[in-house]
């Protein structure tokens, strides 16, 4: 993309559906197209957690490799970015946990999320984790678009509070207040859903 801008012409990004078709056809151009279209965003997600450009780039490349293995059988034609972002997010969290130097941001996020945790042992298997994710999705869908965006930018994309404030054009204190109230609301919602706190 950068090369395209430097050379004075804008390269049109390929459609997600066509990129997935390339994956399904086992064409390595799929990775290049994915990187061209979503590479910077994926690196940004990884860097927000790891705070190291080299590690973030490694996570990005690892995500391409994982995607190459996961497609097929998966066919994320309509949500390729979410699919790739989920992979890079997962890899980044794992790498962050293994490296104590980069675990500070993760600890901060974990502590924040601990306010709305169900009781220990209530989600020990993968199926329960999937149900929890579905419940969170229901909770977020019921929120306003702005609140939902703030919550996801913080706990999914790992944006800092100042970054969220700049993105939404609001103050940092409002971001913090919104997040605090949403955590409490989520806690209450999970309690009603049957998760014991």
């Amino acid at each position: 993309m950068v090369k395209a801008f430097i050379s004075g012409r804008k390269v049109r990004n390929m459609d997600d559906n066509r990129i997935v078709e390339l994956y399904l056809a086992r064409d390595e151009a799929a990775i290049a197209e994915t990187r061209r279209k979503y590479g910077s965003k994926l690196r940004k997600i990884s860097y927000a957690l790891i705070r190291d450009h080299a590690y973030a780039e490694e996570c990005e490349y690892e995500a391409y490799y994982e995607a190459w293995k996961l497609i097929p059988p998966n066919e994320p034609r309509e949500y390729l970015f979410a699919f790739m972002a989920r992979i890079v997010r997962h890899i980044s969290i794992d790498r962050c946990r293994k490296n104590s130097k980069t675990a500070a941001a993760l600890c901060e996020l974990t502590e924040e999320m601990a306010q709305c945790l169900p009781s220990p042992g209530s989600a020990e298997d993968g199926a329960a984790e999937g149900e929890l994710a579905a419940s969170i999705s229901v909770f977020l869908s019921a929120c306003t678009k702005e609140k939902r965006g703030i919550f996801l930018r913080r706990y999914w994309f790992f944006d800092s509070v100042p970054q969220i404030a700049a993105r939404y054009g609001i103050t940092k204190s409002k971001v913090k207040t919104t997040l605090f109230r949403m955590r409490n609301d989520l806690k209450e919602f999970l309690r009603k859903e049957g998760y014991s706190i």
Partner: protein
Amino acid sequence: MRKNELLNAMEGIVPELITEAEREKPALKRILRTVVPAAACLCVALGIFAVVKLHTKSSENAAAQQAGEIQTMQEANAATNGSNSVDAQATDNIEDERSSVFEPIAGETDEAKDMKRVRTFITDYPRRGSTEHPLIPGGQYALSPTLRAAMNEYGALDEYGNEITYIVSVELYEGVCQLVPVTAGEHFPFPNVEEEAVRLCNEEGIIYEFSRYYDGENTTWSLRLDITAKQLESFPASPRYGYWLMLASEELDDYGRPIAHAVFEGDN
């Protein structure tokens, strides 16, 4: 569930929500929500200001045009009605008098409209603030002593060397005042004036017309100059070359004719 597993659980959130959170640009929308109404208000304010300004300007133009039309109509009426009575045209303002005599008649061509002034070379000196009024077309006037004396400077004597008694008549031709001195002599009474006028007219491109009419007893000479307003501005301003208003006073000669004299209108 351990604390850090919640972050893993969030990975399972519906992809549409993730895509939506990535694509939306709320700050830009917020800015647009603020800027667009402000810009719209500004545009409306500027539009109102422009309309008001345009309306004011057009009103001023209309008023000026209306005033011009009224003035032209008044002048035309004055020129028409004035032929009935000489005394009825008394006025104190020389500028008004000049306009009433030399303004073009409505309906003229553009070229004719430019020909607004007549210039005579009958010399006299300015006399302002009197009760004189313009000569009325078709009227018969006697020359004032000073005017007559000025004419005599050009050798306007009859063949016996006696002072000629002049009678001035005025005609209005296509908006131009025509001064017609009437004399009993055979020669034009102002030979130097004629020569000078021809030279000057040729230089300035002024339309002029000399004519002589002999009825068997008297010879009538006339000099008519059609001078546009632009030519008038560039014309040398002096008592010799300035333009003159032929005005009639309330004094009468022995034959009961109003005595005419000339008032110089110029910058000097």
